[in-house]
């Protein structure tokens, strides 16, 4: 059976090498795996940067790295973790699992999906390439003007940041259009919106946030690029420009962005808890509406990042209140997770460990977040390590814990092998201990007055021991991912072959073989209720359904592989890089830009006229 599927896979792509196959693939599963693999590498790079930062702060008056390199490290650590790790690891789950969860054979626009991937990878490489030139971005992950202006950041450092983020934004926007359309329009028959798995809802709401917030940062980055490259003064105070405009535009994007980072995590945990508590999600519709409410409010709270800028009592009060309001839907979600666990027969497998860790850590991060909502209190905490503690509790304790839970949960479906349970639990305990040891003391150093992003600190301020603890914790935290990597390698070499449904799952992806065949569903499923697979098992009176067979896939039409997504991505990157390196000449666009633009245009043209359904089996 398996061989016939393999033969089919290679039938039309007769002599394609493996490399060409992956470079031209439009299969959402392969794209998902590439997202995951590249994002995990970027995640390790970002983690390495964090370890250097922690080593520098290990003891007072330390000079492990130069101050300028330190600036590059914390800027790239933030940028990498947000744009090159958490977002694309989420994108891996979107890509691999949204079509499977809604019973589709692929996303709505497979080639556009490939383009998102390539633009993301090229953008990530471009950003990290700056290290090789010794000119990594050094103005902080939110690039505040005028620190990011040419006057105060004369090198190419911030150009890399501006162009890199612009590139990554286009990838996110393209993926946003694609997944929004896919979820609305590619659902299996009978899967109404309120029957969708909760993770799919989380993805849908996330895409709304991406689509409506990324255009704002796109424009802000264009202004910054114009300021730096074409001599305008949008954020230049000496020419009547207003640096506050950058802050506002950045956070109009930046606050929805934090929900872009956390909502997929909410969705993953909401999928895992019911499966391992053996009961349906508590308050499904309340979960859906609270996510929508969080997303909507998320657009009305951006200035709580700017209480210290002196916006005046009206604005402060408004944004304070709106921020406190967000605690309500978030609280609803937390109580629903607890309600899901309550009275369930808990199966203590690794994914559940990480999901429970997520709930506990996210509550702590959420509580310190509510403290920030109070504008007078925030004035004391802003730009201190207290804030650093807060956002690591929500982004690491929240997003990363949940994404790791998702990795353990869905690994067998993605690769057909179960990750080792013992190593998984070791990973969890080391990560939990390391995480809290790293970030809990930061609350205290923050309240003691240690500023965020400080290069070094003198002895005797009460920071010494707490910083040492944080550094020890950081290395513990780093080592937990060594355990994870070892687990992956061990599983790769000799893991237990996973059945189609190892966890007794509730959703459609567990009804097909692990790993799925290229066309996902041999016959397109029809859904009549939420948790369709549980309904099926109930109806059949069994706990585990018989293993689904692998089929030949004859007669199934799949989208043809294409070079154009990759070519367009390369052209687009060339165009923007050309703008960055031109600034000696008077003409706005140098030859590199023009070449890139031409490649992009030609690629789009050929793409538009490329036949779509070329991958039908010849038999």
């Amino acid at each position, binding site marked *: 059976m398996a061989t016939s599927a393999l033969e089919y896979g290679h039938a039309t792509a007769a002599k394609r090498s493996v490399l060409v196959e992956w470079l031209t693939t439009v299969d959402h599963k392969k794209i998902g795996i590439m997202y995951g693999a590249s994002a995990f590498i970027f995640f390790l790079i970002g983690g390495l940067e964090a370890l250097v930062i922690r080593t520098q702060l290990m003891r007072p008056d330390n000079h492990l790295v130069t101050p300028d390199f330190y600036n590059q490290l914390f800027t790239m650590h933030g940028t990498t973790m947000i744009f090159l790790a958490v977002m694309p690891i989420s994108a891996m789950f979107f890509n691999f699992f949204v079509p499977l969860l809604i019973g589709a054979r692929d996303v709505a626009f497979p080639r556009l999906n490939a383009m998102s991937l390539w633009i993301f990878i090229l953008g990530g490489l471009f950003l990290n390439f700056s290290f090789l030139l010794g000119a990594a971005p050094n103005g902080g992950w939110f690039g505040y003007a005028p620190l990011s202006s040419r006057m105060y950041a004369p090198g190419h450092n911030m150009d890399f940041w501006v162009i890199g983020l612009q590139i990554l934004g286009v990838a996110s926007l393209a993926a946003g259009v694609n997944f929004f359309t896919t979820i609305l329009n590619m659902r299996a028959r009978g899967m109404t919106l309120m029957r969708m798995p909760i993770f799919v809802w989380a993805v849908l709401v996330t895409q709304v946030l991406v*689509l*409506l917030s990324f255009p*704002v940062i796109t424009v802000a980055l264009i202004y910054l690029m114009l300021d730096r490259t074409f001599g305008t003064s949008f954020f230049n105070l000496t020419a009547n420009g207003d640096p506050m*405009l950058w802050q*506002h535009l950045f956070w*109009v994007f930046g606050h929805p962005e934090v929900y872009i980072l956390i909502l997929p995590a909410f969705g993953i945990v909401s999928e895992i808890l019911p499966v391992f508590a053996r009961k349906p999600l508590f308050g499904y519709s309340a979960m859906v509406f609270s996510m929508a409410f969080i997303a909507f409010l998320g*657009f*009305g709270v951006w200035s709580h990042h700017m209480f210290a800028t002196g*916006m005046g009592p009206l*604005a402060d009060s408004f944004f304070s209140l709106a921020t406190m309001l967000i605690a309500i839907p978030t609280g609803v979600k937390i109580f629903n997770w607890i309600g899901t666990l309550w009275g369930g027969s808990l199966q203590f497998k690794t994914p559940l460990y990480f999901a429970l860790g997520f709930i506990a850590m996210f509550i702590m991060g959420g509580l310190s977040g509510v403290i920030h909502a109070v504008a007078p209190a925030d004035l004391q905490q802003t730009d201190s390590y207290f804030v650093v503690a807060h956002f690591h509790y929500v982004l690491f304790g929240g997003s990363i814990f949940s994404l790791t839970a998702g990795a353990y949960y869905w690994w067998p479906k993605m690769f057909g092998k179960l990750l080792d349970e013992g190593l998984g639990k070791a990973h969890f305990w080391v990560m939990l201990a390391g995480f809290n040891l790293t970030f809990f003391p930061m609350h205290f150093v923050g309240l003691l007055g240690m500023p965020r992003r400080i290069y070094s600190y003198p002895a005797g301020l009460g920071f010494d021991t707490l910083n040492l603890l944080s550094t020890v914790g950081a290395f513990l935290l780093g080592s937990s991912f060594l355990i994870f990597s070892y687990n992956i390698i061990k599983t790769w070499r000799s893991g237990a072959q996973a059945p189609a449904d190892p966890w007794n799952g509730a959703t459609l992806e567990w009804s097909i073989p692990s790993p799925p065949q290229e066309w996902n569903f041999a016959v397109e499923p029809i859904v009549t209720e939420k948790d369709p697979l549980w309904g099926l098992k109930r109806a059949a009176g069994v706990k585990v359904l018989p293993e689904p067979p692998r089929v030949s896939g004859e007669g199934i039409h799949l989208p043809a592989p294409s070079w154009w997504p990759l070519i367009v991505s390369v052209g687009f990157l060339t165009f923007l890089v050309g703008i960055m390196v031109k600034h000696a000449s008077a003409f706005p666009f140098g030859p590199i830009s023009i070449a890139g633009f031409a490649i992009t245009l030609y690629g789009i043209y050929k793409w538009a006229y490329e036949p779509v359904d070329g991958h039908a089996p010849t038999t």
Partner: protein
Amino acid sequence: MSDHHAEGVGAHTASAEYIRIAVVLFALTAMEVLLYEACFGHLKASMPGLSTSLSPWFVQLLLVLSAFKFWLVAMFYMHLKFDLKVLQWLFGFSLVLATIVIMALFTLFTYNRTLWWWGGVPW
């Protein structure tokens, strides 16, 4: 794929309706320009009474006129009126959000001056 849609549009609209809307759009644009000329432009001198009574409402009137034009194009030329409701929600939601952001940003940047869209209420 587009069959059901083509039917839907074809049944409701015809060239005649498109022409009627085009005429209305032109009339509205002409009104916008005339409003400007009456309040601040060439016509101001010849009809001072009209100018003084209209000019306090200049911004509001312009916004209403252009919103009406916007609505006509979106509803009829973009077929939103006859199309799926979800498309109306999609466009409507993003428009509302865009408007709120424009107003909020402007308020934040003119905090000690005016709420411009209300025509200058002292704050």
